[in-house]
């Protein structure tokens, strides 16, 4: 959701009004003290915070938010700055989250985290973390901003992609900031209030609903611990309803598109990650060695009729692989990659019947198959099978029926199951009956290994997978079509792009489309157009929808960016 325009303009005006950083900083430095008073005020504020009715309090909150932005703006990093080079956005920009405070916190935390290691870089900061911990959170923002700016700023100079204006502005205060960094230890509160007043004078008429919402966000972390505890309970409840009451989503509108960052495809992602060194390799190795020492114990317990399930953060694939290669070489075993997107219980059962039991033939249902397997294993006591399932909780296997079958399978005395789970809700798959069939022994194996294989099949959010696929399929299909057909499609695509700002765009109606095609001399009758459309539809290039008025609307089910890319490419070709 975007904040109403008023604020934007308001902030802009602030920016104009608000003077160089030096001034602000001086202002800050001059003031020192009166922490106590402020603390009290803070406390009462946080106590009353839930009483939303109290108008002035929410005002205060709003002011606090504004005040933050105020500082950001003052220090020259503001979302409103036309950021041309999106590829390198400063951390400060993150503050332009146009949401209540809650989401600001992410950035806040980021800068907070960014700060901590700097201890050794700039020794005079060393006091800050402790000190700041005591000051109310909202006051900390300012510190954070300044600090993060400081470092950002340093970086900027190397990178030199920051807007000129910004760089110029930041270059000057830098030494100043450095020298002043000690002030932070005694971060004053007075000035905040003053700031607030100033802000409220300027912006008192610009309270938006979005801001009043902020009133219910959690109180600053660092007020008295007791208070926090009391509030936390209410807070959780409130937060929940807060989050679910409004259908509006209070996040910024920025998209990856605007970042102009090229989307990575699976291959480049893989390569990049390969180059990136794995952090804490030594520690992770230690951790894994601990787990490996349990292998023979697992073996023993498997043989005693238990089945083993591994949980904990990190990919357990390598661990299980190692278990397999070190202990199972001499026995028949089945490895199931649960994360594989097309895995089914049936394929698991099939591989047991066909490859382990050497049975040729089909079964009417998985249950029949299971019965057959059970019978065979009961008849022949020398038959033994180890089953390793990576990600027993994967999309394809987590269904009730699949789990039931697997549980039955695992309850056979000569089938030894060892599986891994990752999803936080994985244990919910099993009810008492299944649990007793599985007869689990749980082992915590936190490995911290990256989930390389497990996530590679996933249709990841950021990986340009669907997009690139769609684009390539578009071009492929269209290349096999006649020139006229390509023209028709281009026409539709262009029309759709023109209307891309209209979120309720239903598609191009058939009649209009026909008209346009005729005008472009692409078809001569609606029959030819229909034939063409059928072809498109067969290749899933378009989708037809009947509107409320019974008119057929045509739509290309591809996102705008892909479509733009496609048109660009087409234009090159033509």
């Amino acid at each position, binding site marked *: 959701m975007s904040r109403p325009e008023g604020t934007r303009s308001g902030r802009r005006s602030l920016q104009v009004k608000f003077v160089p950083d030096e001034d602000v900083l001086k202002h800050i430095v001059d003031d020192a003290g009166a922490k106590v008073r402020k603390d009290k005020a803070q406390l009462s504020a946080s106590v009353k915070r839930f009483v939303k009715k109290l108008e002035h309090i929410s005002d205060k909150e709003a002011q606090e938010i504004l005040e933050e932005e105020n500082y950001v703006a003052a220090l020259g990093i503001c979302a409103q700055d036309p950021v041309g080079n999106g*590829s*390198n*956005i400063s951390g400060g*920009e*993150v503050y332009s989250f146009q*949401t209540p405070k*809650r*989401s*600001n916190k*992410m*950035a806040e*935390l*980021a800068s907070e985290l*960014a*700060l*901590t*290691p700097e201890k050794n870089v700039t020794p005079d900061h060393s006091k800050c973390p402790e000190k700041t911990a005591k000051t109310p959170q909202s006051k900390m923002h300012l510190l954070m901003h300044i600090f993060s700016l400081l*470092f*950002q700023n340093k970086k900027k100079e*190397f990178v030199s992609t920051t807007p000129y204006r910004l760089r110029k502005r930041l270059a000057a205060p830098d030494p100043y900031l450095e020298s002043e960094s000690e002030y932070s230890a005694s971060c004053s509160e007075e000035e905040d209030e003053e700031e607030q007043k100033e802000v409220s004078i300027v912006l008192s008429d610009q309270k938006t609903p979005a801001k009043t919402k902020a009133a219910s966000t959690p109180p600053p972390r660092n007020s008295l611990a007791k208070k926090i505890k009391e509030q936390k309970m209410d807070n959780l409840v409130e937060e*929940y309803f807060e989050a679910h009451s409004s259908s509006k*989503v209070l*996040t*910024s509108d*920025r998209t*990856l598109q*605007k970042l102009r960052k090229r989307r*990575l495809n699976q291959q480049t992602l893989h390569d*990049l990650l390969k*180059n990136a060194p794995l*952090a*804490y390799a030594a520690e992770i190795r230690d951790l894994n060695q601990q787990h490996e020492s349990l292998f*023979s114990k697992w*073996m*023993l317990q498997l043989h005693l009729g238990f089945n083993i399930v591994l949980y*904990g*953060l990190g990919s357990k694939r390598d661990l299980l692989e190692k278990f397999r290669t070190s202990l199972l070489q*001499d*026995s028949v*075993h*089945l*490895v199931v990659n649960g994360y594989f997107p097309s*895995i089914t219980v049936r*394929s698991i059962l099939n*591989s047991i019947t066909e490859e382990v039991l050497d049975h040729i033939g089909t079964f009417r249902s998985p249950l029949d198959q299971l019965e057959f397997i059970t019978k065979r294993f009961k008849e022949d006591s*020398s038959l033994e099978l180890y089953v390793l399932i990576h990600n027993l909780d994967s999309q394809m296997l987590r269904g009730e029926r699949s789990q039931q079958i697997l549980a039955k399978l695992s309850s056979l005395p000569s089938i030894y199951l060892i599986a891994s789970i*990752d999803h*936080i809700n994985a244990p919910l798959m099993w009810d*008492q009956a299944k*649990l007793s069939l599985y*007869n689990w022994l*749980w*082992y*915590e194996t*936190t490995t*911290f290994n990256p989930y390389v294989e497990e996530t590679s099949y*996933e249709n990841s*959010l*950021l*990986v340009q997978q669907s997009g690139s696929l769609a684009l390539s399929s578009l071009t492929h299909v269209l290349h096999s079509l006649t020139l006229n057909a390509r023209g028709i499609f281009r026409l539709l695509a262009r029309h759709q792009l023109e209307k891309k700002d209209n979120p309720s765009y239903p598609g191009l109606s058939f009649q209009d489309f026909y008209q346009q095609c005729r005008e472009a001399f692409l078809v001569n009758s609606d029959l030819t157009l229909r034939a063409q459309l059928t072809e498109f539809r067969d290749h899933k290039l378009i989708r037809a929808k009947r509107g409320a008025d019974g008119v057929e609307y045509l739509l290309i089910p591809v996102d705008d960016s892909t479509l733009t890319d496609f048109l660009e490419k087409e234009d090159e070709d033509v």
Partner: protein
Amino acid sequence: GCFVFKPSSKKRRLSDKTGHDFRSTSSDSEDTELRFVTCQSLWNQIKLETQQIQEDLNKQLLDNLVSFLSRSHSDFQEKTTKWTCRMKFREIPTAALVLGVNVTDHDLTFRSLSDVLQESITPYVAFLEAKDCPGIKNLMQKLMGQLMNCDIEVDSLEDEDCVQVSQNRIRCSMPSLISWYESVTQKTDPETPSKKRNSSSRHWQFPPVVVIFKDMESFTTKVLKDFIVISSQHIHELPLVLVFGIATSPMIIHRLLPHSVSSLLCIELFQSLSCKDHLSTIIDKLLLTSQFPFKLGVKVLQVLINIFLYHDFSVQNFVKGFQLCIVEHFYSQPLSVLCCHLVDIKKRIYSLSHDQCENIRRLPSFRRYVEKQESGTQVALLTNDNFLKEETENLLEDLHAYHENYVLILRCLHVFTSSLPKYPLGKQIRELHCACLENQVWETEEYESSLQLARMLNKSDLVTMLQQCVEILMSSPGKEFDKTVEKLKEFLTQFQNLEEASQEQDVSVSSQKELQKKTDLYHLQKTLLELKESRKSKKLTKFEMLRFEVVDYIDRLVRKYLVPADNRTLYEIMYFNAATVLRGHLNAAPRTALHMALNNPHWYLKNQALKCDGGGISNKAPDICIVYKLHLECGRLINLVDWLEAFSTVVMAAEEPNADAASSDQVDDIIHARFIRAVSELELLGFIKPSKQKTDHVARLTWGGC
């Protein structure tokens, strides 16, 4: 996604594989083989014992059921020719079997039930489960399949094939079922009546057909209704008996079935033993006995009991946990080789190696023991293996004796505490057992208050309790308690004497009679005051004295025998105490582990850079931790761009020292890639999911836990 690996060489592994595992793992320590054998034999004994207990407990229930089933169609037997007279009766005899909520244990009960039925009443038993019967058609199919299979088992001679074929072809309907039943009963009956009588005289000529609905609650109303209505039409042709397995309460029948249907049933209720009683018996027979040398420590026992009480009510799981304890104990404790019956101990002790002797010396309880000895003995214990072995033998014998006495006195104490109001030491003996194991029970407040209460017991209660105690102590084979028994008997006779002497106690009554005389107010007051005085200073009656004596005696017994086990020397050999291991394996908390790893990676990765005070994490933490931490600060939806920026801010700050201007673009790409990986990992873990609500947004799936 599935890959089968077969060993290249077809060699079979040793049949003694499990033992091999046991051996290979603990190769560093001693006597693994013997330990494994001991472990296995102990477990087998315990398994048999539990099965026996289960059978005994179910016996009553099964007997009742069997008699009901045999009664249900007795008319059918007698007046086989006059079926028509039963036309008007349409009620199906039904047994409602209330089994309790521990569904997982039901299977055992049903299995033994079907065994008993096959044995004594009818070969025709069918089990139906709700998930196999979504419709009446599936139900009939399942039913007929099972019944006809029993048929094959009964006379699996010549016509196996034809039955097999017909089973697939046959139309599953009630008439076909009836015709099948007729053919079966006709066929077996007239052909060889004599043979029939010999081979299966236990079955009647027309055995009832028993249909067991394992989980009545999960069946849909429609299926049950249809089945009952249909079969009630045919009850005169097919002697059907239904058994409903009920987990909740018998009310469910009426809730599931409308009145018109439930009126077709002639329901009789059977209640199985509650799982809590079952557990008590198990604990009684497995733990509070000197039959098994292996013992559970207090923490372990509490873990097992808590899992039972708060999670599943499953006795099977309890036994499973017990099994795990045994395995763990024998696996991890090299000295557990001595955890055996008294008869074997001597031999085993003298075959101990030097290393094992060292192991004994290392036991904390043994060190405590050594410290208490004189210096000469100390040296001998620490240097002379043979002397140590002798001493160990004595100590272990002491330990065994301690167990026997402990159990007896515990039971005696339980007799007292279990009848006190409010049960300060618990109602069940297991609670008392835990209290006694945990610390010196006589130092606890609860014990104090229960003694107080015991001092107020009335005579008849006291006498019965004492009698019970005498019985318990008499049951022990040893001589240890002969004196105690004598003492208690003496108490009993004293109580008896008291009764006879009680008539003489009417003296005080006379004084009260004086009050009834006419007096003036002054005198009345005076006499009343005197009376009060005399009461205050009145000596305890003989009974009260005796009562005090008894309680004190019991107290002495408790202090002598109910010493917590971990005060005993060498208790580590018998007691399994690793409660955390057990809890980790049986009652794991995957979410907590995940949360811990994400919030506090230092817990797992022992790197100084990750150490962080307070709730925060360092910015050098693994990517996924940083990404997770950042996402906690967001609302329902998370903007990926902002997230990415926040992430890169953190990561860049962490890497600043070596982030030269050289290839910032490439660095940026790498950060981007790392971010992608971390986000998709979070998605795999179920913290976020893609959202279509807004472009480039993901939805958060978890709340709290910050």
